[in-house]
């Protein structure tokens, strides 16, 4: 029973990270229909920037994370402006390949700057707390709480502010949005910025319990794709729910099935979903 609760808690932790990454991916997909393969590289970059800020400049964890969010967010803006905007009218194949090019560049860049070694990020929250006989590290609790706070803020932003509503409007219909006078380019850049920021938050939160290395985004991005297909490409609640579902399945799978193959769970899930429903779960009805 204890193991089960412990694993559910772990699931919640991993799920929180997955949800944040998937949210960024789904926002961009919803607005621009770009499956951003480079999103994992943005995640990786976020981890490195936070780490460097802490080790090189000795700044506080939260401030380091803030810098990371800004830098990666701006990186996203640059990508939109100088890559994806140029490809907006191009066949869908081109977006994907451009994104792969960016991914390869960013990974090589990280390796060039920070080396290929694995780094650990020490967070100020490595204490262990005891709640009802179960032990948790503060960092894990922090991941869960922060993720929920970020999600709520994102929700409020999208629903309660004008700027947020332009994003929603554009995800529903690009033509409609431009007809009512929404500046599509601005919204696209903003979306990329939020997407990059979310990736940076996710990796900054997760790095203290994982490791920082050039390939750290690989699995995460693949899983984030699985999640948004699970939750519906472009759907925001879908990304959140999907993230937690995957988090739970993995932590339970690792315990009760096989730790070796836990990374495969997501892909088997995806293969099963797409085999049964080629357009993904919750696909918007054909029109």
């Amino acid at each position, binding site marked *: 029973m204890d193991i089960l609760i412990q694993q559910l808690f772990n699931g919640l932790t991993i799920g929180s990270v997955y949800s944040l990454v998937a949210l960024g991916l789904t926002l961009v*997909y919803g607005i621009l*229909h770009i*499956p951003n393969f480079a999103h994992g590289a943005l995640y990786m970059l976020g981890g490195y920037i936070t780490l460097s800020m802490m080790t090189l400049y000795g700044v506080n964890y939260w401030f380091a994370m803030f810098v990371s969010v800004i830098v990666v967010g701006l990186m996203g803006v640059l990508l939109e402006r100088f*890559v994806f905007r*140029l*490809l907006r*009218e*191009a*066949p*869908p*194949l*081109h977006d*994907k*390949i*451009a994104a*792969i*090019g*960016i*991914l*390869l*560049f*960013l*990974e*090589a*860049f990280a*390796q*060039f700057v920070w080396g*290929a070694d694995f780094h650990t990020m020490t967070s100020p929250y490595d204490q262990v707390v005891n709640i009802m006989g179960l032990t948790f590290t503060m960092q894990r609790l922090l991941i869960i709480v922060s993720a929920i706070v970020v999600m709520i803020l994102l929700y409020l932003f999208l629903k309660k502010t004008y700027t947020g509503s332009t994003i929603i409007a554009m995800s529903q219909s690009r033509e409609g949005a431009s007809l009512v006078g929404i500046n599509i380019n601005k919204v696209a850049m903003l979306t990329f910025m939020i997407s990059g920021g979310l990736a940076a938050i996710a990796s900054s939160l997760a790095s203290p319990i994982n490791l920082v290395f050039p390939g750290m985004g*690989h699995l995460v991005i*693949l899983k984030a*794709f*699985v999640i948004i*297909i699970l939750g519906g*490409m472009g759907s925001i609640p879908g990304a959140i729910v999907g993230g937690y579902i995957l988090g739970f399945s993995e932590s339970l799978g690792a315990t009760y099935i096989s730790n*070796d*193959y836990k*990374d*495969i769970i*997501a*892909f*088997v899930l*995806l*293969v099963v979903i*797409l*085999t049964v429903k*080629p*357009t*993904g779960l919750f696909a918007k009805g054909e*029109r």
Partner: protein
Amino acid sequence: MKILTKRNGIIALIILAFLFPIIGQNDYYLHMLTLSFIWAIAVYGINLLSGYTGYLSLAHAGFFAIGAYSLGLLTVKSGMNFWLALVGACLITCAIGFVIGLIALRTKEHFFAIYTLCVGYIIYLVIDKWEGLTEGVRGLIGIPAPGNIGPITFDTAASQYYLVLVFLLAVIIVMYRIIHSLTGRTYMAIRNSEDLAQTIGISTMKNKLTAFVLSTFFAGLAGALYASFIRFIGPDIGSTSIMFDLLMYLLVGGIGTLSGPLVGTLLLVILSQNLQFLQEYRMLIFGPLLTLIIIFYPRGIAGAIFDWKIKRKDKKPPVLRNDVSIKVEEG
């Protein structure tokens, strides 16, 4: 007249390729060329599917690995004759390709790319983790070189070069014939617009599946040749970084062109050999290159030359970009 010079040029290139081991006398270059030819065969496979049929597969490094491991296991563990194992490796790859294609091709565009990316990853993970069969990360060692055919042996660098060259030429001829036939036109119609292809009576699923299986065949063949040429294989040959390398060869050379895969592979393999010092960081250059190419020269070097020729022939310059798929809107 023009055709004649083009044909002569190709003949000259082939002769040069055959004479190279005699002129070159350099095992290092021979090795590099042989390896490039092997990669090029796999790239032709990806080109058939992604370039001509319009489905971006990210699983082909996986099929390459399946071909390589099938050959390795059949020869090393079952002690099978090389040539039999080569046929077996191709058949195994095609069989797995058929099953995966049957499912994967029900998805489209982004879903297909993501699906195949995941399939590729699963193949890699299975090879990596299934130690009982594949020896896992230790890799498979002692794979035999190609066996003799009568008096012809394949134990020198030059003979292996010729063997791979013959396979490559065969692959190119097959590709040439396909894309200049009704079958090739059918694939291109599907790439251009699947809806339109269906309205003109093309059974898209059947054709896509044939293209998919044939493209996995090329990847598997390349993998099997690789295994017997390098004599050692590890799970890494199925990794996404190999996939992205292959994709880059294709894109730089020219996706959806006949010469593109060979041009791109040769150019990039030679280039990265000469940029040895930045081996680890070559993606610092190649990554942005890939992105720039897809923005400005979406059909690579071969495509750019082709467009330039058309421009010269046709006084009215063709509108570039916006080419492949204009989606059908419904009212």
